[in-house]
């Protein structure tokens, strides 16, 4: 599903280039879930952004479901983000001017894969069925994150990328959202790559990988 080979990435800052990823190799098989952990600045969000096609690597290769991101132009990367992956952000990033129902269907519509039955099921499972007519600002943080999860799943992408999806939620709500996310990822037959600081949540995923100073320093797989 996901193959990352010798990936490197650096950013320019006033003090000179800052190496964020330094030859990362990672594989994730279809239908599996992986937690990416590490201290702040270890490069985990950068890795997620590169896999999401939001940024471009300096060197190395990323392949998702057989498609290599190397050399893809802006439009092709946009098509990749639309069809192959879906991102769940810590800040939810819902469209404030659209109702919950429209937010749920948002990416599926862009991808031309709106499935009303699947959307209704998602809304039901995520406990959003009675909130479809509301705007995001009328929801609690937990409810907003459920909408973000639903939006990502609505398109049934092969790979779901989550950047601290429960970072803004209390422990109880985070557990609830996590349970739903894992269930629905399984039902959608997608894979999940999730960045998290929480060892407790990471433990619920199939595999845990730890990054430090841009290198993989730990992997739960032998």
């Amino acid at each position, binding site marked *: 599903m996901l193959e990352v080979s010798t990936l490197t990435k650096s950013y320019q800052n006033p003090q000179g280039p800052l190496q964020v990823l330094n030859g990362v190799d990672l594989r994730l098989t279809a239908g599996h879930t992986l937690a990416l952990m590490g201290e702040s600045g270890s490069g985990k969000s950068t890795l997620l952004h590169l896999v999401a096609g*939001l940024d471009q690597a300096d060197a190395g290769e990323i392949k998702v479901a057989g498609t290599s991101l190397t050399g893809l132009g*802006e439009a092709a990367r*946009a*098509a990749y*983000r639309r069809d192959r992956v879906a991102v769940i952000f810590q*800040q939810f*990033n*819902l*469209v404030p001017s659209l109702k919950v129902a429209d937010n749920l269907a948002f990416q599926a519509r862009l991808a031309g894969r709106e499935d009303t039955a699947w959307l209704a099921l998602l809304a039901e499972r995520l406990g959003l069925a009675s909130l479809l007519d509301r705007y995001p600002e009328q929801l609690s943080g937990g409810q907003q994150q459920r909408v973000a999860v639903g*939006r990502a799943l609505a398109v049934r992408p092969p790979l779901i990328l989550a950047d601290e999806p429960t970072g803004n939620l209390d422990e109880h709500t985070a557990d609830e959202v996590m349970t739903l996310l894992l269930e629905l990822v399984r039902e959608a037959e997608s894979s999940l790559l999730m960045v998290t600081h929480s060892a407790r949540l990471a433990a619920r995923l199939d595999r845990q990988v730890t990054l430090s100073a841009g290198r993989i320093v730990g992997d739960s797989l032998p």
Partner: protein
Amino acid sequence: MIERLGWVLRTLLSHWRRHPLQGVCLLVGLWLATGLWTGVQALNEQARDSYDRAAGLFGEDNQSVLVSPGNQPFDQEYFVTLRRAGWPVSPVLQGSVTLNGPDGAATRLRLTGIEPLSVPEQGSVVGTIQQVDLVGFLVPPGRTWIAPDTLAELGLSSGDTAQLANGHALPPLQSLAAVPPGMLLVDIGVAQRMLDQSGRLSQLLVEGAFAANQPPLPEQVALRWDVRDEGDLQRLTDSFHMNLTALGLLAFIVGLFIVHAAAGLAMEQRRGLLQTLRACGTSLRLVVCALLLELLVLALVGGSLGVLSGFALASLLVGDLAASLRGLYGAQVAGQLVLDSQWWLTGLAMSLAGTLLAGGSSVLKAMRMPVLAWARPQAWRDAQARSIRRLAIMGVLLLLVAGILIYVGESLLTGFMLLGCLLLGAAWLLPLVLSLLLRGGRKLARSPLGHWFWADSQQQLSGLSLALMALLLALAANIGVGSMTEGFRLTFTSWLDQRLAADLYLRPESQAQADSIEQWLSRQPSVQAQLPSWQVQSRVRDWPTEVSGVIDHPLYARRWPLIEAVPGAWDQLAQGRGAVISEQLAYRLDIELGDAIELETPDGIWTLPVLGRYADYGNPKGQLLVSAEQLNQRWPGLEVSSIGLLVDEAAISDLVAGLQDNFELGGFSLIDQAALKRYSQQVFEQTFSATAALNTLTLGVAAVALFTSLLSLADARLSQLAPLWAMGLRPSRLAWLSLAQMLMLATLTCVLAIPVGLALAWCLVEVVNVQAFGWRLPWHWFPFQWLTLAGFALLAVLLASISPVWRIVRVGPTQLLRQFAHNA
């Protein structure tokens, strides 16, 4: 692809549903910008159409004619002589008539008599003749052809008859599109009857090809070659219309500032939305397409409203415009707007171009940011701070260009470029200057709250800078144009007091009447002096010029102020040793004291040294004064054009009554000094009424720009104020502090606008007016006017701030706490 574009567009447009007031403000900006611009263009187009109709009536612009040396009516026997000699000439008689409308209001119109069978074929009137019932026109009672707009203005319809003030009844009216506004076209015989000019003509039209070589006239025909002066109208009024265009453009730019501010802030608020769209797989190209489509929709809605309002505005102002063009240039402009589809389409295109200009830059700016940078809350602000520095650099460059233009500019266009560079340069420099002032304020602050006050004001600057620039532009324009107008008013009034030395002015209808009047006047003990003058319409180096012959009288030296003159100028003039010329003629043709002017006379070339230069405000033509005796020698047979009378003040009304009884003089043939002053001042007021209206509207637009910015910033404002509230400041205190910040920023802008406005006034007086009209006004200071304007601006800012400030007063703890939740 189309479906995806639809979804993206729908998502973008949903922003306006959530922020309807912001959308309204953007549309208001577009609406005002387009409305003011198209309104001005409608006025210009209306006037130009009228000039074209007048110029094209009998032929091309430079239609050759034969006129009497003094441009007075002549015997129609000349026409008969020339026709017999085989000349392709056609008679015309023109004069002013007063028509009593159905509501009793008197309207002055130009009555033109033609002989339709011999009119040269090049004119628009010929095409008309071929399409209408010519027999009806020629056979009694005949027809009066009139422009449809003039007919509508009079409240009459085709087939109606109308009564002239002199008692004659016009033949039945017939509406014809080719007739210029303000003109009545009748058969030559009818015109002679209506104007009491039996057997007289005012000019002979000559067929173009025949007139090309201007063959010599038979000896017994005392006429001279000339060209119809309607063609000069376009030239003479160009400056007037260019001034209007410049004002319209200024209003358009200020309106676009609103659009720019609203579009930029909408973009900032949609930063997250754009990131989400991109993250969800929308390509950059699709986002750009959707943003441009959104702008197109907004431009069409705002532009349509603007074009409709522009039409309404022009309809309101066209009456004043027509009156001032008539007063200044003698130009007849239709008082009812008739605009073609091209005007409507151009208005919409202008709105679209303006929207792209004002809104497109934020689209481009956002597009240049990498997708992940949108997630950084400070990204936009950083970009704004950089743009303030960039703007300041461009502002300095523009001011340098303005400085260069002062020295090298030699045309009206460079004059307007100078104004544009000055205004835009100053506006672009404003945010940096304000930022530096606020930084200075912060250094002086002692208390923590004072420190916050200045620092926070500086932070507000990026969001408010566009609105403040609009305020600076509007204020500077008001101060500049106001100073110029007031200066002109002062100069014009005192100049009228000096120039209108005689107590009564009369225009005899013929030399015979002039002789009788002179004899009668010489028997009146109350008449201290008679000042007859003779006039010839001529050209100096192809510029239309009026040559006036004046008698030797000490009054001229005493009451006719000269800007500069050689010693004993009036004595030399009386002896026929030169001429004094108007300031605009001197400027237009670059004539200095002592230079020689060459005038073409029936007697050959007349060379006249320039003895002096005098102000002649409001006269678009050049003018020169020469000795009456010399003028009559060079142009034999000239008739007296006007007679000025010095009369004992107590006897004026008796003398007027006597002249009216004995010579049936009335209307414009006999006018006293006070009436003439009233009329001149009325023309002056009408001329500047459109300017004043546009200026006031520009200030209003700037207030709307501020309101838009404050409203758009209101959401972000709460998150900035919430920490202070948490630290113990009450919402009402925060509201007062916010209001004080706004007023402080506006006051600083007002203070900076005064020197910019004065620089603008200087450019108008010393550069634009000189280029446009050929006269230079003395400089005046109007501090009270600046204070009044600053007061109005602060009031406008206060009004614009009320709603956002009230929102802070009313804000509850829940809303403030939510700011912390959002920031978490």
